């Protein structure tokens, strides 16, 4: 049903009409059908009964007489009635079927029992029972079973026809209804539409067009009435709303201005804010605040907001001027009451400003004056774009506003003044506090009567080590040592109002006692009478004084007891002080005799130039030691060493000199002696050297000739031995062979020894050909020389690159041959011999090394290594003459280098030699 409510009227009407029609049609036709059907049935019944009667009558006789044949025959005539499906006759004396008839071959029908007269529709058949009476004698009953299918078919047909008919009718009804419903729906729809439009647009000015005088017409009329009433009310409400809005705005302005007053403490800020609020919340076009300049008596613009353009420039509200003071602003200030102009265009008072005002769109304005207890006078002026803007209700509020502003300004003034005072006070307090707290001098304040500590500054805390809390809980006397407490207490009693300076002792927190100088006077502190003391810790000073005294003493003693003479001169080289020793040195018994005299009085003439030089240097501040000859009182020279220094004042200006003078007369003598001895010695050395040289030369010649001469016979021996071996070796027996072999070996050995000796001696004599040589190539050469030795050997070479050195080529080669040869030789017993060469560069020398993993040596005998004929290994193990390393040493020595070695038995050896670094 709800959905039905929501369908449009049009549809509703159509639906109603159609449904009504449908119902009517169906009802009507159905009723017709029913009746028709009943009629048909009745007809059928009548027909049937008639047929039954007829046939029954015919069958009466056969029934009576029991003639079945005839009866059957008559029954068979029933086939003329096609609707009779089955029929039978019941005889009068029994219920049994007398004769039966079947229309079709289907004889299955079971005839019902004998029944009284009836014609019944049952199971789609009409069953007729008719008692056959002849002459009032009951002969029997005839039963007919008539098919009612005809009826059904007829019914079906009728329904079909009816339905189609109904449909057609309904369709036409639909069209007609659709058309005719407009008569009702369109005015209603129209109304609905209009209502929708009106409520959407809130436009109550619309009036409906009259549409007839029926209920809808009346509705229209009433609707129009309603609209006009609504319109009236709307207008009234709009007006009221306007009023409220306006009033609201003023309230908002008032409220916000009050807020501003509460929150803003600065005058200018407040005035600006008020103007802003007036514009933003009050919806005025322009607002400005003017303050009267007491000197010029003109109103000056101090704050403004909104569309001012150039209205406020040269607004010239001169309170002295009769015309210019009569505008709303001026008048309000003068009268102290609000003045408004609700129609600027026509207001005479606004004439001076009218043009500008109207150009800016100001239609009405109001000025609200305010004043403070001082001579501050001013007004807030508001401008609106509507005429007649200002009326009673607003005026009240605006006046309140002006009052609030006045209060605010008053309040601000007072506040400002108070703040200023406060500031001053604070500043002075801060000053004092600063003075007290930050003062580098130790300050304390104590109460006079109780001696309780009232205040201490940071310097006190830092110096004494107490915390502020601790000290403020103490008394003054707590700072004093036990023996002074009484004294200070009694002293203070006498000090009331007096200034005092005194020396006392105080004890720091950590227990150390300090000497202090106190400077105190009385004051009022926190309402109590107290004393403030400036404490000066003079412990150090005292100590310094003591130290100075002691030092003075010390120095006096030193000076007096010094072994040296001390002579001080002023700027003019006059003696200001000599000590006893000095005086004594120069033969004066009393230093008095020297004081005040020039130093030059005590010097030899020859020395004066040098002396003046030295004095110059002294004046420059240069201190130095030098020898100086002074004149003894007796006139003889006293040799001294002077250690002279300048005396400079704190500005580094020359004040004089001081000299420490040591008598070296004795020493001088000794020196002369030495010199003499030295020259003697030199001569002797030259002699010796010559001797040595000649000796050397003899030695060289000797060794040369020796070796040479030695060689010759040796050559013979080995030569002939070889020949003998070649010739007669076979002839010898084993012992003999052994003897020969031994001799050969020994002679070879001797040869080698001699060679080495020769080399050695040669090496000692030969001139050195120094040149820049490439060590790497040198080593390579050495190695090629040692080829025989390296053949068939597994040797791991690690040859580091070497620099060029300044040396004799062949000699250095000899060095490498010897060293490398040794390395190769002594690693013979190793499976893999490791031989390494390398360098280390020092500042003034290059150190070369050759390391092997051979037999090594006992470090205890390292010294002997480089000695001539010195060998640390037996001949059986390693052959050699023992000259190789001696050679190396000699060569390196001639190169001004050093040789040394390191080794460990069976762990290998490292041989080092150094050559001077030419860079």
């Amino acid at each position, binding site marked *: 049903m709800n959905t039905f409510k929501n369908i449009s009227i049009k549809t509703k009407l159509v639906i109603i009409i159609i449904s009504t029609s449908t119902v009517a049609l169906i009802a009507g036709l159905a009723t017709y059908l029913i009746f028709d059907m009943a009629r048909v049935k009745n007809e059928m019944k009548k027909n049937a009964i008639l047929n039954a009667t007829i046939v029954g*009558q*015919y069958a*009466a*006789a*056969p029934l*009576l*007489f*029991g*003639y079945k044949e*005839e009866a059957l025959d*008559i029954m068979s005539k029933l086939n003329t009635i096609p609707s009779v499906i089955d029929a039978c006759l019941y005889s009068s004396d029994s219920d049994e079927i007398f004769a039966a008839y079947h229309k079709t071959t289907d004889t299955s029908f079971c005839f019902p029992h004998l029944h009284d007269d009836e014609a019944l529709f049952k199971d789609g058949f009409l069953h007729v029972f008719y008692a056959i009476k*002849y*002459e009032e*004698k009951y002969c029997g009953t005839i039963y007919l079973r008539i098919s009612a299918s005809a009826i059904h078919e007829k019914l079906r047909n009728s329904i079909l026809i009816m339905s189609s008919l109904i449909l057609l009718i309904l369709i036409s009804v639909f069209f007609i209804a659709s058309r005719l419903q407009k008569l009702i729906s369109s005015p209603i729809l129209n109304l609905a539409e209009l209502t929708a439009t009106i409520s959407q647009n809130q436009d109550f000015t619309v009036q409906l067009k009259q549409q007839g005088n029926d209920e809808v017409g009346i509705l229209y009329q009433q609707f129009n009435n309603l609209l006009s009433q609504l319109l009236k009310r709307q207008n009234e409400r709009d007006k009221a709303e306007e009023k409220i809005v306006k009033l609201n705005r003023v309230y908002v302005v008032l409220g916000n201005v009050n807020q501003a007053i509460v929150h803003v403490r600065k005058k200018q800020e407040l005035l600006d804010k008020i103007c802003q609020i007036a514009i933003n919340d009050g919806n005025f076009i322009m607002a400005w605040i003017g303050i009267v300049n007491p000197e010029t008596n003109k109103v000056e613009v101090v704050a403004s907001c909104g569309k001012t353009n150039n209205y406020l420039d040269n607004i010239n509200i001169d309170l002295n001027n009769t015309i210019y003071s009569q505008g709303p602003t001026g008048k309000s200030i003068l009268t102290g009451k609000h003045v408004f102009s609700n129609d600027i265009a026509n207001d005479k008072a606004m004439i001076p400003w009218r043009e500008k005002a109207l150009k800016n769109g100001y239609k009405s304005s109001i000025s609200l004056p305010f004043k403070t207890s001082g001579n501050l006078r001013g007004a807030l002026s508001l401008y609106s774009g509507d005429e007649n803007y200002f009326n009673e209700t607003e005026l009240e509020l605006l006046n309140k506003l002006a009052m609030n502003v006045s209060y605010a300004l008053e309040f601000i003034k007072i506040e400002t003044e108070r703040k200023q005072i406060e500031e001053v006070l604070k500043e002075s307090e801060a000053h004092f506090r600063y003075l007290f707290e930050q003062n580098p001098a130790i300050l304390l304040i104590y109460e006079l009567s109780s001696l309780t500590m009232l205040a201490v500054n940071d310097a006190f805390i830092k110096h004494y080590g107490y915390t502020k809390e601790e000290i403020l809980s103490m008394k003054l006397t707590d700072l004093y040592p036990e023996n002074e407490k009484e004294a200070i207490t009694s002293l203070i009693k006498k000090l009331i109002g007096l200034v005092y300076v005194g020396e006392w002792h105080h004890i720091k927190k950590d227990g150390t006692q300090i000497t202090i100088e106190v400077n105190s006077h009385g004051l009022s502190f926190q309402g109590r009478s107290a004393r403030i003391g400036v404490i000066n810790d003079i412990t150090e000073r005292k100590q310094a004084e003591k130290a100075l005294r002691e030092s003075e003493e010390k120095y006096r003693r030193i000076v007096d007891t010094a072994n040296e003479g001390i002579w001080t001169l002023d700027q003019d080289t006059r003696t200001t002080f000599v000590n006893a020793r000095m005086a004594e040195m120069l033969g004066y018994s009393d230093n008095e005799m020297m004081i005040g005299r020039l130093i030059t009085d005590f010097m030899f003439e020859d020395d004066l130039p040098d002396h003046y030089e030295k004095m110059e240097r002294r004046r420059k501040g240069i201190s130095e030691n030098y020898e100086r000859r002074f004149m003894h009182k007796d006139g003889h020279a006293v040799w001294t060493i002077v250690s002279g220094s300048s005396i400079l004042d704190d500005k580094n200006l020359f004040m004089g000199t001081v000299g420490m003078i040591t008598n070296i007369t004795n020493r001088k003598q000794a020196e002369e002696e030495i010199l003499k001895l030295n020259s003697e010695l030199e001569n002797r050395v030259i002699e010796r050297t010559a001797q040595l040289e000649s000796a050397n030369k003899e030695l060289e010649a000797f060794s040369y000739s020796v070796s040479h001469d030695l060689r010759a016979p040796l050559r013979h021996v080995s030569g002939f031995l070889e020949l003998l071996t070649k010739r007669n070796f076979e002839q010898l027996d084993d012992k003999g062979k052994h003897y020969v072999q031994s001799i050969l070996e020994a002679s070879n050995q001797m040869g080698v020894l001699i060679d080495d000796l020769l080399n050695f001696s040669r090496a000692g004599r030969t001139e050195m050909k120094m040149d820049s040589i490439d060590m790497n190539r040198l080593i390579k050469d050495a190695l090629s020389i040692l080829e025989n030795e390296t053949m068939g050997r597994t040797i791991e070479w690690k040859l580091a690159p070497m620099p060029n050195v300044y040396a004799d080529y062949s000699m250095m080669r000899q060095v490498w041959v010897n060293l490398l040869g040794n390395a190769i030789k002594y690693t013979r017993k190793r499976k893999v011999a490791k031989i390494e060469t390398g360098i280390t560069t020092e500042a003034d020398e290059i150190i070369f090394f050759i390391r092997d993993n051979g037999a090594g040596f006992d470090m205890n005998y390292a010294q002997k290594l480089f000695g001539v004929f010195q060998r640390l290994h037996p001949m059986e193990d390693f052959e050699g003459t023992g000259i190789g390393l001696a050679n190396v040493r000699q060569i390196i020595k001639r190169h001004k280098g050093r040789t040394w070695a390191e080794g460990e038995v069976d762990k290998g050896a490292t041989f080092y030699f150094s050559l001077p670094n030419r860079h």
Partner: protein
Amino acid sequence: MNRNQTHINFSLQIIIVFLFIFLLGSGTMLQAQSDEQTMKAVALEKLSLFISWPENTPSKEFVICVLNQNPLGDILEDVYKDKKIKDKKVKIVKIKNLQELTECQLLLIPTINKSELNKVLNYVKGKPILTISDSEGFAEAGCFINFYEYENKLRFEINQKSMENAGFKIDYRLLKVSKVINPVIE
């Protein structure tokens, strides 16, 4: 019992059975015979339904004359003791000869010879008396209605012309179920 006795008993039984059947049969026959007569008697009433006498003589009784001791007479009395014909009480009169024939509506003629039949028929000619016989050929001879048996059923033949000539009206329905002798063609 010995075997012989049984044998004798059995035969006896058979004989008894046969006797019974015979008696029953004969009884039936007898019955049948009497049945036939009864049926004829009953038929009379039925017939009369379809027939209308020439002048509905307002006689109180429906008289049936039975000629010559027609055995039918006895039965008639039984049958029509309580029954009415033509709504009248039935009186059965047994007559020996024609002279005794007085007022009667129905005359039952037994099997007599032709000459006698003619005599009778002539006697009743013109009188509203329904002549009924049950002998062959009697309907042709002039009896109005003659019973005969056909297919075990009692049938009758009607001499329509004679009857109608005598003023009797016969319902066509009766005619339909009877053998019509001398039909009247219309």
